[in-house]
């Protein structure tokens, strides 16, 4: 269980994290999503005890990361950004060191190392020098050291960076599997990764939480941004108004342009109002269809554009 309360971190004059609060329970995989410099890595560094917060608190299983750093660190497996490791060692030597440092009982070390090497497909390079390994192998080695002591909490900073598509799928499957019995927080720039692996998303922007929940929940809170793409034919000599109301639904025309075939393309969305809370996108689409018919236009194409995590991300993390 991870509990973060009003966490803030300042590096000199830079406020990296501002008043961030969230909770993550066992069996959840949380994705921290945000542009570069948003504060994702700083939050992870605080949770792992690498940095202490300027204010607020971070608790791991009820223990403060500042007051009980060693107890907290025993419960956490951490893959830092870029998966640093000791280049002069081999994966086997490196994992042996980590096993000893993590106080894994001597009689269980060899079997545990073998197990994580199998899980992370490292067997074939186990005796090679780490500095000669590809980025993908080093990334998997970083993941292997993070899970070696079978921690209850996994914190993974961009875990699939540098992996090829097959390896990405393997590692995502491994994270999903680990997430069934552990608390996992991962940061990523890859939106598909969040949708593929995470049960919850926290979008971080300029050190603050910009949105939080499942991607569907975040989508629902922003459903006014669902849009329809229409292609119209008929008497369209004048431009359409930017806003109009039809059957008590307010619409806003976001974009309109004349196509080569003479048709008019419009991107249109409804304005989210309290009265619209229980109106389905399907009903809004029907209203829009009725409006087209009422105007005497001919509809040649109509497409409902659901708001995607990508749209939400772009919308929430736009500067300003």
């Amino acid at each position: 269980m991870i509990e973060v309360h009003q966490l803030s971190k300042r590096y000199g004059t830079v406020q990296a994290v501002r008043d961030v609060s969230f909770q993550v329970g066992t069996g959840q995989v949380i994705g921290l999503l945000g542009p570069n410099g948003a504060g994702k890595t700083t939050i992870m560094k605080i949770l792992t005890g690498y940095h202490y917060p300027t204010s607020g608190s971070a608790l791991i299983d009820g223990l403060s990361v500042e007051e009980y750093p060693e107890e907290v660190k025993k419960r956490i497996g951490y893959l830092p950004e870029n998966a640093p490791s000791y280049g002069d060692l081999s994966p086997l030597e490196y994992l042996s060191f980590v096993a000893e440092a993590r106080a894994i009982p001597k009689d269980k070390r060899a079997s545990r190392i073998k197990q994580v090497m199998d899980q992370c497909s490292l067997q074939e390079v186990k005796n090679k020098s780490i500095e000669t390994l590809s980025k993908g192998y080093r990334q998997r080695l970083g993941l292997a050291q993070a899970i070696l002591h079978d921690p209850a909490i996994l914190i993974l900073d961009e875990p699939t960076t540098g992996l090829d598509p097959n390896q990405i799928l393997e590692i995502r499957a491994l994270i999903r599997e680990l997430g069934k019995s552990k608390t996992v927080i991962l940061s990523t720039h890859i939106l598909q990764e969040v949708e593929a692996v995470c049960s919850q998303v926290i979008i971080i922007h300029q050190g603050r939480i910009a949105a939080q929940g499942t991607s569907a929940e975040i989508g629902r809170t922003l459903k006014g941004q669902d849009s329809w793409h229409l292609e119209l034919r008929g008497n369209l000599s004048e431009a359409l108004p930017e806003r109009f109301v039809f059957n008590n639904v307010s619409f806003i025309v976001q974009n309109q342009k004349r196509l080569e075939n003479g048709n008019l393309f419009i991107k249109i969305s409804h304005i989210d109002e309290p009265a619209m809370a229980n109106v389905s996108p399907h009903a809004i689409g029907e209203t829009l269809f009725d409006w087209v018919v009422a105007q005497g236009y001919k509809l040649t194409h109509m497409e409902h554009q659901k708001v995607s995590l990508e749209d939400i991300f772009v919308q929430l993390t736009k500067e300003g």
Partner: protein
Amino acid sequence: MKGLSSQSIALAKKELYSALNSPATYGVWAFFLLFNSITFFYLQKFFSLDSATLRPYFSVIPLVYTLLIPAITMKSWAEERKTGTAELLLTMPFSEWDLVLGKFLSSLMILVIALVLTLGVPFSLFPLGDFDGGVIISEYVGALLLGMAAVALGQLFSSLAKNQISAFLGGVVVLLAVMLLNQLTSLMDLPKILADILNYLSLAFHFESFARGILDSRDILFFILVTLLFLFINTRVLLFRKWS
């Protein structure tokens, strides 16, 4: 301060293993042996002295340590920070003392091996004269204690530096200063109290009694306390970085 934990030993073993696999370590040992031997046999002309003593051999130890110790300790923290592995170490269940002691032990072992390698000199010279074994033991104890304090200081500089080069240069400058502080008192006509203070702060000054064959408990205590002080400051540097 906590005692030596299994985590410290694990880290010390890993560090020592890496050092023994690095050609630089063998270069450092070769430099130490060559510098001491050339100074002793050629510059100080040991065979012309007609005296069964290794004092000239140990008299250059403070000076050679100013280069040797930073070369051993420069990687200690600076390299970890540069490659990002400091983040791994500091997020493993090590206390700051575990980390500092682990690093210190491995660097000290490199120094101990360097000193052991010099044993060939006394053993090859014993048949040539009536050497005082007690004095030589005292000289080695002094060299070890002086080295301990210097390693702790060099390691502290490595934790403050951003890269190995600045750790090395910073270590050389500061070690030169603390080793040779007592030289000021002989070069300049300083008030007695100031001269006493400078002498007391000089590591080389406390080494002189060992070089004369005297195991002075005050000097032993001085080196132990100075070592602990530098190691303690090193733990505070690690802790401070978590807040900064």
